């Protein structure tokens, strides 16, 4: 097993790990945010519009963390800048 095999194996594993962690933790955060929003909505149904808007913005912010992880994983898989050292 030469270097490039080891390298691609490790980077594939790391990409899987990145996606796993990077969706798990934002999912927890999103769950918390939605639960809090539902609670506020049940208490104050007349404030629905503001709550929904703030919830959407907050979810977008949390979701972007997961998207960062996805982008990093895709870079590691398809456009790994470190691969150049092996291909030289």
């Amino acid at each position, binding site marked *: 097993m030469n270097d490039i095999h080891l390298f691609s194996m490790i980077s594939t594993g790391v990409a899987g790990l990145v996606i796993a962690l990077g969706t798990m933790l934002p999912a927890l955060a999103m769950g918390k945010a939605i639960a809090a929003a539902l609670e506020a909505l049940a208490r104050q149904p007349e*404030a629905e519009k503001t709550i929904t808007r703030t919830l*959407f913005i907050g979810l977008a*912010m949390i979701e972007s963390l997961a*998207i960062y992880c996805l982008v990093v994983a895709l870079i590691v898989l*398809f456009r790994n800048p470190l691969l150049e050292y092996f291909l030289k």
Partner: protein
Amino acid sequence: MNNAESAADTVFQLGPLPISNTVVTTWGVILGFVVLVLLLRFSRQPSSLRNLLEAVVVAIEGAIAEVLPAASVRRVLPFVASLWLFVLVANLVGLIPELHAPTRDLSATAALAVLVFGSTHWFGIRDRGWRKHFRHYAEPSIILLPFHIISEFTRTLALAIRLFGNIMSLEMAALLVLLIAGFLVPVPLLMLHVIEAVVQAYIFGMLALIYIAGALEPAESDTSAMPEE
């Protein structure tokens, strides 16, 4: 596989400049909007299309009025409304065969995010003047100045990456399912694409709106942008 994640396939060369399909589709979308506007501008009598578009504009105006003070709604409306409509159409264009959504290219979303970045300062300076606009970076105390500057850039970066990542990942997921499962199986994923395209367009425009609202009059817009306690 390589074409899947590199969105910028060159269509033709314009002198030394390679013109990617992102540019072509973007200009196509813009041209479509221009034709629509000209068509409505020169038709005098009300038609059903005109009614539909007026309803859209009224809905957008209502959404902006919830965030901004009433005096500045009309000033911000053209920018935010065109951002909303453009991003929506650009996201949905990817569903047409042979076309790619321009927003799956990071350069396109980065250009939109830079526009938002510039427009927050433009509206802020026009509304409050140079001194007051830049003083709010050192507002509670001067120690917070670096954090304000960092947040200014990271939120622009996040705006670009969010839209790009969502649209690119959806197209790529559909492609991967197509590779694995074959004909007609990615259709449910494409339905998810429609929902996601609408939601991402809404979020992009809403975040731009909130950033602009933050630059306008913080005392008024902050209370309307945040839920009451």
